[in-house]
């Protein structure tokens, strides 16, 4: 009695996992960081840095970021995002000794 139930539960779990993976948004596909050895910025031809938070490949030299879609890096210059540099905080006067 226990064995068929266990098998049934196992099959149900497998079906559920397949369903879950098929409905997971495709942008969540992981980016293989080994690709950093293969690709470069199409404009500067220099290496890129992976930003896992934004899921982008960043060219620090040019301050542009290329999106990664479904685990595939989109390295078309027109699709890159220009990174706005944060404004530097202004000094409130010189420090007095």
């Amino acid at each position, binding site marked *: 009695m226990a064995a068929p139930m266990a098998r049934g539960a196992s099959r149900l779990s497998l079906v559920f996992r397949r369903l879950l993976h098929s409905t997971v948004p495709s942008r969540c596909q992981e980016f293989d960081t080994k690709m950093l050895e*293969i690709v*470069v910025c199409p404009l500067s031809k220099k290496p890129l840095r992976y930003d896992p938070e934004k899921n982008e490949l960043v060219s620090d030299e040019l301050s542009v970021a290329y999106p990664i879609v479904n685990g*595939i*890096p*989109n390295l078309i210059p027109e699709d890159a995002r220009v990174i706005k540099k944060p404004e530097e905080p202004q000094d409130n006067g010189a420090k007095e000794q």
Partner: protein
Amino acid sequence: MAALRSVSLRVGRICRCSNRITVSRRNLSEQTSSDETDKEEGTERSTHFGFESINESEKTGKVHEVFSNVASKYDIMNDAMSLGVHRLWKDRFMQVLDPLPGTRLLDVAGGTGDIAFRFVNWIKQKEQQRRKTSGAEFRLNPLETDESGSDTGLPSAEDYLYSEQRGDLSDTEEKKDSKVIICDINQSMLEVGKERAKKLGLEDDLVWVTGNAEELPFPDNSVDAYTIAFGIRNVTHIEKALCEAYRVLTPGGRFLCLEFSQVSNPLISSVYDLYSFQVIPVLGEVIASDWKSYQYLVESIRRFPNQEDFAEMIREAGFRMVTYDNLTSGVAAIHSGFKI
């Protein structure tokens, strides 16, 4: 004197390519403002989109739209339009390339993976053949003697020499792994290819990158072979794509292009034209519900340079030993060149 002239010609070609790349980077960063200025002045350059004349800046987007529309039905349509002959062309293409294990291949405009899959299977077959051959070499019957008269049954010095030449004694050395990168400007085409690769169990062997053939996101001298099959006629600036191909290839690397070309036989040409313009767009409408995209595809074939003109463009980019072979009386052609 002749050697100096040859070197200076080669440098000249490379400089032309470098200048094109430099100008292209500057232009892309200023593209928005310059396009607006040109439009105001009415001086924007035009190019062909099939038989239509459009602004250069529009072509990439329109081609992108065509392939986004056809991506899901691309492979079925190829079979229907060519009655499966495209498979034979691609098989022949791989035979001509004849890659060895350890080759790093960049397949441009390779969206749905036809060339990449053939490359992976070719390499696997070669590796299997090599293993079989190296295994049999050392399986000597102890009672038999080799030609030198040795009766030990152990491999002779000659056997080792032969094996080293073949690369079998490289277990202790670092082997260069074969690699294939598929680059396409259209994400939809790559996603179709990725799904196909998954079904064929090849997903671990392939790298997928969205990129523009005119501005490749790969370092200089990083690939041993560059292939482009039925893609280069869709590129807005073919000469830029050829320069980029030259840049990313290692010295000695090979450029190989499979593309529709021109049929010189007038009888075959008229039958081909009839089929192209009367049948293919109808197939496009019936199978893919997209007459216009297939009308474009047929027209774009007619706008592409003929065999000799395209060979000259490849030479202009710096390649040498440029040759071409016609397939099916020139309906398609394979162009080859080397970076030497």
